[in-house]
């Protein structure tokens, strides 16, 4: 691989594009659309999302039942999960020269753990093995929009998702809203430090997507193409 085609941010041949934001900000929809677009244009794309693995969801279930999870163990457990995902699904394709599209990255942990009261510098240092992305899109939406979309999706709001462990409110939806407010505050605080590209996501999906294409195009200069779209979940299905 010619040195000039390596990322100037992390030095690997691939590129790392990260989609961050609150639940219901539309980042997952856009991450998928972007993956399809890049795949169709002939780039080697690897899509990966941070859904809790079996290991973590099992442990969280146990911990919740026994009332054992604290902000520290919760944070460490997710770091373990991320490290596993990173060592399996992010670093290898990045080294192999893929465009790696991440629906959530370490920033999700930074904001969530800070909102739970963990020492932010401690959390960041834990994730220092994760390279800085070439581009991080922060999908900014009002908390009310996030909440509305969450309720409209009819997904059950989980105990930890709502931050119920923090005792913010007795009622799930109220707790969820307060917790999202905290998360949003932490995201906003990270904008400069982490060099987020802000995507005003309370707009029609197609307009948001047009902006993303515009932001991504310059990153593709001189990047090799090869028609292939691989998704993390497909690659492990066999």
């Amino acid at each position, binding site marked *: 691989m010619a040195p000039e085609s390596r990322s100037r941010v992390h030095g690997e041949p691939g590129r790392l594009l990260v989609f961050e934001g609150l639940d219901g900000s539309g980042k997952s929809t856009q991450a998928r659309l972007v993956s399809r677009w890049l795949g169709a244009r002939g780039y080697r794309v690897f899509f990966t999302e941070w859904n809790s693995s079996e290991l973590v969801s099992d442990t969280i279930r146990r911990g919740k039942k026994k009332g054992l999870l604290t902000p520290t163990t919760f944070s*460490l457990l997710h770091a373990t999960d991320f490290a596993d995902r990173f060592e399996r699904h992010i670093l290898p394709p990045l080294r192999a020269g893929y465009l790696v599209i991440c629906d959530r990255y370490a920033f999700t942990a930074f904001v969530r753990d800070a909102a739970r009261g963990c020492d932010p510098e401690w959390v960041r240092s834990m994730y220092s093995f994760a390279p800085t992305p070439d581009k991080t899109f922060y999908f900014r939406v009002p908390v009310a929009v996030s909440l509305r979309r969450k309720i409209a999706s009819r997904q059950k709001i989980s105990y930890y998702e709502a931050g119920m462990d923090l005792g913010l409110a007795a009622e799930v939806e109220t707790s969820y809203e307060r917790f999202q407010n905290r998360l949003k505050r932490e995201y906003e605080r990270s904008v400069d430090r982490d060099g987020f590209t802000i995507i005003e996501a309370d707009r029609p999906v197609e307009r948001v997507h047009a902006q993303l294409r515009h932001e991504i195009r310059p990153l593709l200069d001189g990047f090799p193409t090869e028609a292939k779209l691989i998704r993390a979940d497909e690659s492990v299905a066999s």
Partner: protein
Amino acid sequence: MRTRALRASTYGTRLPGLPREPLTGRLIVIEGADGSGRTTEVGLLRDWLEIQGHPVVESGLRRSTLVAEQIDRAKQGHTLGGTTLALFYAVDFADQLENKILPALAAGSTVLADRYIYTLMARAIVRGASRAWAEKLYSFALKPDLVLLLDAKPDVLLHRSIGKYGSLDYWESGMDLSLSRDRFESFFLYQARLAAEIDWMVKEYGFYKIDANRSPNAVHADVRRLVQQIYKDGVDRSRPAPAPGPVNGRARRAAAA
């Protein structure tokens, strides 16, 4: 009764959401490689402390109710990467710290830890983590009152290890590091690397080294002498603890806190 503030007594990172009650118990850590006589010494020390009227709670590695089983399962498959495994151990440690060690100390018990963050840091570092990363990761850990390092020569460890298991354990030989396909050779290479990491911690964290090439009774006599000190220190809190042996600035500040 002595008390200490939680914040002052970790290695720098605050633990969120914990009661601010004073910790009146004592935390004693026994470190040492497999075959250094740790388990024997923990047993002897526990008996001795209890006879003197100090309630004892034991902790160790991979004993948390939260993830111990999962770690065992993951190790069977040998599939986790170095960073992942290091963090997994940290979950186990944090769970024991918060749900076992701290409550016991708050209740005034003595916690006898059969290994602590030091072994975990050493293992992570020999598997590729940086010292800075490992130290920061475990900076939420409580500073012990006393860390005893049972120091034995590699050939002594080897014979005790073979004597105990009848063979050399896969993990204790560091086979996952591919240092050598020969387990005997890998054992020596791995233990040397671990020892090198423990070695810089001796000064940095103020360990008391005990020559563990001797009989359990000789080792135990030394251990008693050192352990006695930390109970004496508790009687008169108006003066700083006398430091028998090489105590560095960090450990001294901790003793004063």
